[in-house]
């Protein structure tokens, strides 16, 4: 009798804790990376440059996308320069309320003309924003670093 009870308790006990841990970790990873990054990033072809070694910004930056056609896009919505500057002013006021500087990152398509970038840069500088980041696409591993900025 005693032997039978012991056999029954040994056979079906499979410890699933480690597997469930790993699966939860994977789910949390996909939840955080895929949704957040993809929401904020508009698909653009950025200039392929190495960039600088910069620390990550202390606060999440305001991402301003400039498409190949020269439109300003923030969080999926298209803005005119005037309405974009209203948005920048709001974000700037919000940052100042928290005693922080507004971080601006501009993601401009490499095929775009510099006119919209220049208009934005002038407007930002006139509003006292002297620091911005320009996003680049890191060159593929193994590709030659040289080459250039020749236009097409």
């Amino acid at each position, binding site marked *: 009798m005693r032997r039978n009870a012991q056999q029954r308790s040994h056979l079906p006990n499979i410890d699933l804790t480690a597997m469930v841990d790993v699966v939860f970790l994977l789910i949390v990873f996909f*939840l955080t990376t895929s949704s957040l990054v993809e929401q904020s990033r508009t698909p653009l072809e950025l200039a392929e440059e190495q960039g600088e070694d910069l620390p990550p910004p202390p606060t999440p930056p305001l991402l301003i996308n400039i498409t190949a056609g020269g439109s300003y896009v923030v969080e999926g919505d298209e803005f005119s320069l005037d309405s974009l500057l209203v948005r920048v002013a709001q974000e700037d006021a919000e940052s100042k309320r928290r005693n922080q500087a507004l971080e601006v990152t501009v993601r401009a398509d490499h095929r775009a*003309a510099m006119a919209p970038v220049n208009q934005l840069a002038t407007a930002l500088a006139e509003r006292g924003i002297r*620091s911005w980041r320009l996003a680049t696409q890191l060159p593929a591993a193994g590709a030659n670093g040289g080459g250039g900025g020749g236009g097409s």
Partner: protein
Amino acid sequence: MNFTPKSKQRSTLLRSDLTAMIDIIFQLLIFFLLSTTYAPPEGHLEPALRADHQEAGAAADLVPQLVEVQSRGGRTVFVVGQVEVPDKDSLVALLSTLPKQGGLFVRAQNNAQVSGAMAALQAARDAEFDKVTYVPPPQ
């Protein structure tokens, strides 16, 4: 008085059915595996920003250390003083010979492409300029 054997008590207490939970977890995992798209890491260039309010002819302080990015017939040209260079490598070589303490200004004309301006800013960093400032042309 509980007359059930001890081994039986233990087994009924600890067994909870995890099948439904594991099913849902696997479905979530498969959904995220299929729906996610890989976002490649991005680099950043951080030039200082300055608005040029002066007339073009009066911007004497910008002339010695200014890289102007121009577009001519669809080709990007980098102009440093009287010298013109057609690509980034030549620009890095040219900038490496300039004094570094004064910093460098970069200005891209409105019809130049973003790729040309980014190449000029990267060239300035590659030539080991610490202070790089982007100055948009007067609007």
